[in-house]
């Protein structure tokens, strides 16, 4: 045995010993999704070079993808812990009611943003408390609160839209929807939230406990994990992310309409599952959701740019989603056993 081999052995004594198998088991999913993303993008560029080799389309992606990718990131944590939240799409609107109320009376946009995020947190708290307190599956509860929150939004503003033109002069607008070194702030926030989510999911007690709860709930109970508290926190985070996304989108278009967010249910869920997060809980990746969101966001623009008839958009959507989740399933069975 050479010195080099010995050194390599000792240096990995408590680290990782990379064999094809352990490496594959840990990273297969994320490598798979990244590879699929690159392939897809190469196809876009070769089929619609004028669109995909110029910056406007990327600016557009960077502005609009975060609107559903932000809640999708936090939703990843909820799904990892074995729950689901379908109500987040209605939290966009409910949070914006708070924003409008503060902004129209007080004129302070920064305060209005805080009010929106607070309402988002409260809406998430209500989800979490009902789910954990009464032991009703999150799927059922959040179908209910999806209607409830949307209904409250419509009732509170009598179904009316509000123009938010004056808010464009605020510092808050610059902070949320401006540019940083030419990069849309929506994208900057998405990256920050993605890093924060990654830290919470993999490097914080909350994510550590959430993983166990999603993988094996009875074990979590036996090992004294604060199950309800953990799950409630994750719902609260989804509510806050949805509120932030709602504010960003409303400020960007200078308009609040009470149906805001409605179109994002399936794109956000698709981003999570395309990204390789298990619908059964216990396993998920933040990177996968991030990439998955841009896959979902890119498809529509690409199809239009490639000149495909609009009727085919959903067929291609469905095809790509099924392909992505199939790749994950195959990789998993290949490496996990």
């Amino acid at each position, binding site marked *: 045995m050479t010195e080099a081999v010995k050194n390599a052995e000792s240096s*990995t*004594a*408590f*680290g*990782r*010993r990379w*064999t094809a*198998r*352990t490496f594959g*088991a*840990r990273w297969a999913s994320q490598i798979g999704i990244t590879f699929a993303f690159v392939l897809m993008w190469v196809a876009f560029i070769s089929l619609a070079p004028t669109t995909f080799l110029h910056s406007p389309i990327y600016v557009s992606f960077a502005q609009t993808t975060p609107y559903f990718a932000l809640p999708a990131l936090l939703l990843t944590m909820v799904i990892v812990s074995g729950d689901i939240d379908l109500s987040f799409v209605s939290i966009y609107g409910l949070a914006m009611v708070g924003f409008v109320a503060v902004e129209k009376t007080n004129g302070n946009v920064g305060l209005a943003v805080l009010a929106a995020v607070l309402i988002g947190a409260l809406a998430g708290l209500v989800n979490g408390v009902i789910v954990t307190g009464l032991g009703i599956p999150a799927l059922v509860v959040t179908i209910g609160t999806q209607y409830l929150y949307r209904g409250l939004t419509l009732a509170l503003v009598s179904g009316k839209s509000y123009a938010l033109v004056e808010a464009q002069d605020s510092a808050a607008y610059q902070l949320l929807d401006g540019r940083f070194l030419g990069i849309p702030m929506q994208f900057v926030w998405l990256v920050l939230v993605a890093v924060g989510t990654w*830290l919470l999911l993999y*490097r*914080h*007690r*909350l994510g*550590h*406990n959430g*993983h*166990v709860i999603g*993988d*094996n709930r*009875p*074990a*979590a*109970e*036996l*090992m*004294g*994990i604060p199950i309800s508290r953990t799950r409630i926190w994750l719902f609260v985070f989804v509510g806050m992310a949805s509120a932030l996304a709602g504010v960003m989108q409303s400020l960007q278009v200078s308009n609040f309409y009470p149906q805001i967010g409605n179109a994002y249910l399936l794109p956000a869920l698709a981003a999570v599952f395309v990204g390789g997060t*298990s619908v059964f809980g*216990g*396993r998920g990746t933040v990177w996968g959701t991030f990439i998955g969101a841009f896959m979902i966001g890119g498809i529509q623009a690409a199809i239009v740019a490639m000149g495909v008839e609009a009727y085919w958009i959903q067929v291609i959507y469905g095809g790509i989603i099924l392909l992505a989740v199939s790749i994950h399933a195959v990789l998993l069975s290949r490496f*996990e*056993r």
Partner: protein
Amino acid sequence: MEPAEATGRGRVSVELRHIDKSFGGVQVLRDVSFTLRAGEVLGLLGDNGAGKSTLIKIVTGVHQPDSGQILFNGEEVRGLTVDRARALGVETVYQERALAEQLSLWRNIFMGRPRTRWLGFLDVRAMRKVTADLMGESMGFTSAVLTPDTHVTGLSGGERQGLAIVRALHFEADIIILDEPSMGLSLKETDKLLGFVEGIKAAGKSAIFIDHNIFHVYAVADRIVVLDRGRIAADFPTSRYTLEEVTGIMREVAASGNFVEPERGRATNGVSATEGTGETS
């Protein structure tokens, strides 16, 4: 008879007094009292549904009794939780069903009590290191394929059991509860397990050993407690009877619910069988 007090052996470690517990109108435990002494291995036997798991979950703080007292080292503890029980030195080996399969070994070792630095952020490096050390020293995992980052799905049944046991051992427990630890183990792995239980005793710690297999219990337990339909049917030092006699007692309890002193030709002055002490076998 009583071992020297100075070593702490023979001292009452846990005592349950008149514990009752019902779930939705079904009384699972009724008037259960027993003591576990330091340095003692107590075998808990009983059929399915006898209340073994419930009894264990009361000692470990997962369930709270409807009435009755729990005493640790002679002091009553009210409102026992899993965290509190752990702080008092109770660790449980819940076999592989308490492992999270899709998670890494280090996350399983530190399940429910991760090492953190500030604001709840994990000290992953330290946890990986401890896990690697435990794998080498205690679990005897020498395969190069296994690392602290390996997922539990990659482990054999015996390796999983080893992981569950090492997890309990790592945290300086005084009382180790083994819930059906030999289930699904090979003969060799079972021998290793029984050796491990002997090690608990040698270290002056106590254990509650729950198993269907009377042979395993007889081999390591100082005292045997038999549960039947939620109450204690028998409680005796293992050394008092032969394995055949214990088998007979079990059969009798299962049939009649009562403890019957085995026929042996010697005077059986009807001793209350609940006078078990910390005799070593």
